[in-house]
């Protein structure tokens, strides 16, 4: 099937082939009749052996031989020599078959089956494996078989590690050997009590792989191994809480209609659902074990026991970077609530753990206050009757947002909490690697050099001050990605995505930087001068990917228009989000809007001028909660949930996304899917909708 040249068969060849195929066919029929007749005589066995030598892929023949073995072993009673010779014959047949095709699944499994019976000696096996290693050092069947045999023989981890070292020294390009080494090393690192320090092991491996990488930078074998070492270096520490909502030190005032104010004026400006006031915890790694016993919330206005913590990113896993608990403030008389101190404590007891097995054991305290406010004028009620204008630039005014504005003060409170990280061996190792790769790049202008250097710089920035996340090297990293796009055009989208993440991190890394993108919105005719609604405008930045939002948990208004986003993964963390503009991006399906399903305060959504309806292949299909991926909590009842006369056929993804949101305003024009039929479908499933594409529906 593979690697045979394309040529028309010559007449002489045709005749020979026809004879060959007749012979094989009769051999196969003969075999099948022995098999169906349960005949296990010497002659019958010979037939199957001949067959397997020509066609080791005939799986039924291997099954037959196992049946024959079982039958014949039964027949010869307890004589160990007869039994052994039966099994030895099987090993011989397998060897012959492997000579014909050393990638035959059936042959290798038969050999494993024979050895598992325990009547054969293991002596030949390692020698046989050496032969196959020389024939093809990447034969994964042989490597799998090696793992099987060495386990049966109880060979030590150290001996096998040495074997991989030997193989790599013979040929740096032996990815299979590097892979095997990573498996053995992972096992070794897990046995922490063996007195091996993580640091020593990693240092040795870095040196080892650097030899390979520097000898031939185009050889991929070392690339993935080096990346693994880097990940181990980064993740060798306890998880950290990056941020929370509300943030430590925040003094929030909530008015009766759900608007959140900071001490002097509105924080952001739009009302949120008081029944689901979120508490958000955002970690630097995926963690598990967040519940009301490991996270203690002391508040007079609600009980810790009633809090249910849920993972947000991802949603249906038990480990997540972002966790949320919803509190119900709707029953409280906010017009007269005096400031309540609320304290959130974690790390005081065991239970919160990263997926690498490191525990969060340093206690973390978050204290904030909530007070109520009496409002005479209810600005939000009027706002709900007014349309939010997305594109009118006059409505935005950045002048007011200086260092003394409420949002700046809030961000100040957030930033001041961050301590600098301790230094350590892991920072030293990465610094050393950075120097090595800088050297490499002076000799060879190579792709892997640039990509690895970019990763190392990002890692180092992240390690030095994980909480501040100030990116000292972001410009250099962005330059490296620009170079990579020129050097390796087929992978330019990959480099673009990585750049977008770095760019975004750079933009929001400091309060001063972030304020440049914050605008106050004055578009509502009925608003008072004191009501400034803060909008974060990250539009027109060529962003193809958005990343961590730990610094943006306070955002209620987000403008991501005129970018190149096809995914909004990560947005689910912005639980306060009320208005979202995704106009003119590359959203290709409704399933890409899955993160919005967690945003219960979302009221205005602009997805106009995207690509929904123009792609026959949906790349977000399996990252979307639906019956096709057996995920989620939808009780899917086909047409029963729909209003009369509405057809589900082409719009089931849209139905799942929008049915639980209370959108008041939507813009969908400019998507091929948004014809009249879809518009009426949308209106039917969104009872709260007042404006569609700028038109008042009532």
């Amino acid at each position, binding site marked *: 099937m593979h690697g045979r040249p394309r040529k028309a068969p010559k007449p002489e060849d045709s005749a020979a082939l026809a004879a060959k195929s007749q012979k094989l066919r009769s051999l196969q029929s003969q075999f099948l009749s022995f098999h169906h007749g349960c005949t296990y005589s010497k002659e019958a066995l010979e037939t199957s052996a001949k067959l397997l030598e020509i066609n080791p892929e005939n799986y039924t023949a291997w099954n037959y031989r196992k049946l024959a073995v079982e039958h014949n072993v039964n027949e010869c009673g307890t004589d160990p020599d007869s039994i052994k010779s039966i099994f030895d014959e099987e090993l011989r047949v397998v060897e012959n078959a492997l000579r014909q095709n050393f990638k035959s699944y059936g042959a290798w499994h038969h050999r494993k089956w024979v050895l598992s019976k325990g009547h054969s000696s293991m002596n030949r096996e390692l020698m046989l494996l050496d032969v196959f290693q020389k024939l093809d050092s990447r034969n994964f069947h042989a490597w799998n078989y090696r793992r099987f045999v060495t386990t049966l023989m109880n060979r030590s981890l150290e001996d096998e590690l040495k074997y991989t070292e030997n193989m790599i020294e013979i040929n740096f390009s032996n990815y299979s050997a590097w892979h095997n080494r990573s498996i053995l090393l992972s096992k070794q690192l897990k046995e922490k009590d063996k007195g091996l320090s993580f640091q020593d092991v990693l240092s040795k491996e870095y040196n080892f792989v650097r030899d390979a990488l520097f000898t031939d930078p185009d050889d991929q074998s070392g690339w993935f191994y080096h990346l693994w070492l880097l990940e181990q270096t980064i993740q060798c520490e306890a998880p950290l809480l990056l941020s929370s909502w509300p943030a430590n030190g925040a003094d929030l005032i909530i008015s009766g209609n759900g608007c959140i104010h900071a001490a002097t004026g509105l924080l952001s400006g739009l009302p949120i659902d008081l029944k689901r006031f979120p508490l958000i915890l955002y970690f630097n790694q995926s963690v598990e074990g967040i519940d009301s016993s490991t996270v203690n919330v002391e508040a007079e206005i609600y009980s810790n026991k009633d809090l249910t913590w849920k993972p947000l990113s991802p949603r249906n896993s038990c480990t997540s970077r972002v966790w949320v608990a919803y509190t119900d403030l709707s029953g409280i008389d906010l017009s007269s609530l005096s400031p309540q101190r609320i304290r959130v404590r974690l790390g005081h007891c065991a239970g919160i753990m990263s997926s690498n097995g490191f525990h969060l054991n340093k206690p973390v305290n978050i204290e904030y206050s909530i007070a109520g406010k009496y409002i005479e004028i209810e600005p939000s009620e009027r706002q709900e009757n007014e349309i939010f204008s997305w594109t009118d630039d006059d409505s935005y005014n950045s002048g007011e947002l200086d260092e003394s504005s409420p949002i700046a003060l809030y961000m100040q409170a957030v930033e001041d909490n961050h301590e600098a990280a301790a230094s350590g061996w892991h920072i030293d190792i990465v610094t050393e690697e950075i120097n090595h790769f800088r050297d490499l790049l002076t000799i060879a202008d190579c792709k892997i050099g640039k990509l690895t250097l970019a990763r190392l710089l990002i890692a180092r920035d992240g390690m030095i001050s994980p909480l501040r996340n100030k990116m000292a090297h972001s410009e250099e990293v962005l330059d490296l990605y620009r170079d990579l796009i020129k050097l390796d055009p087929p992978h330019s989208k990959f480099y673009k995505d990585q750049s977008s993440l770095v760019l975004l991190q750079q933009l929001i890394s400091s309060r001063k930087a972030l304020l440049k993108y914050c605008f106050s919105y004055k578009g509502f005719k009925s608003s008072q001068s004191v009501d400034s609604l803060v909008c974060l405008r990250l539009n027109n930045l060529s962003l193809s990917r958005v990343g961590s939002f730990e610094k943006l948990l306070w955002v209620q208004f987000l403008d991501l228009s005129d970018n190149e986003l096809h995914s909004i993964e990560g947005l689910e963390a912005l639980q306060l989000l009320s208005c979202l503009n995704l106009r003119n991006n590359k959203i290709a399906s409704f399933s890409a809007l899955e993160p919005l399903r967690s945003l219960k305060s979302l009221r205005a959504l602009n997805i106009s001028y995207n690509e929904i309806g123009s792609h026959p292949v949906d790349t977000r299909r399996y990252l979307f909660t639906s019956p096709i991926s*057996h995920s989620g909590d939808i009780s899917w009842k086909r047409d029963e949930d729909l209003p009369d006369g509405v057809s*589900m056929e082409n719009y089931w993804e849209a139905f799942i996304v929008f049915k639980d949101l209370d959108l008041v305003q939507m813009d969908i024009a400019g998507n091929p899917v948004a014809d009249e039929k879809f518009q009426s479908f949308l209106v039917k499933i969104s009872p709260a909708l007042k404006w569609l594409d700028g038109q008042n529906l009532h």
Partner: protein
Amino acid sequence: MGEFAADRHVKYILSVEKRKDDFESVVMEHLRLNGAYWGLTTLDLLGKLDAVDADEVISWIMQCQHESGGFGGNIGHDPHILYTLSAVQVLALFDKLNVLDVNKVASYISSLQNEDGSFSGDMWGEVDTRFSYIAICCISILQRLDSINVERAVNYIVSCKNVDGGFGCTPGGESHAGQIFCCVGALAITGSLHHVDKDLLGWWLCERQVKSGGLNGRPEKLPDVCYSWWVLSSLTMIDRVDWIDGQKLVKFILECQDTENGGISDRPDDAVDIYHTYFGVAGLSLLEFPGVKAIDPAYALPVDVVNRIFFGR
């Protein structure tokens, strides 16, 4: 851009269906049911499924079924999970899943699940993540996912995850695009893709694209059209498909065609076969090539067939 010889490929597939006595067909007699799946799915993707006699095919398929509920690769061959999936997939293409005794097939599949969540291929116990995918895909098409222990099945697959983000055939097995497709597909169908490090695996997968534009199955190997499916469908399921140059891959696949006699081969100018014809066309489908129906990257069936199963009439 080269021409896509759809009609020639249809003719080629129909001719292979009729051919039973040449050496190639005899050697592969034992996996004819797989061949039926490859050929018929390709016909459906090209809008020509009606060119075959559905009843004839279905009656042959049912003769491959054993008492246990499992299907053999051809009449007279032992049952195995590989051919059971192909049988169910072909019946789904023809919208004839109702000829099956679903309970029987479901119990055959569930009987092959082991304590640790893995699946054996048949009663002889070979374990491989390919079989995990096959079991999950098959049982899901029959809408009987509840007949297996999904949590253990997922845990076993996750135990086969490697440090490069890929998956092997058993725990400790080297990452290989074929195994990766199986594991990612199984995780996709069971709503468990959060176990996949999409950025890490996405990079490993996109690095399969070599200078010629084709894709290989693992580092330092030659490109092969079948990886246009294994790699591409994996990338599609984790939404990183734009990390490769789609147009260059299209060009590579088109160069692997035999535009005269029909069929697609593993590499340009090699001999064609049904297997590579299917994978080439499936790859073009994922790349949204005009004239080819959309294929579902997890179930490896046309999207309209999958939608029919889950959202039916």
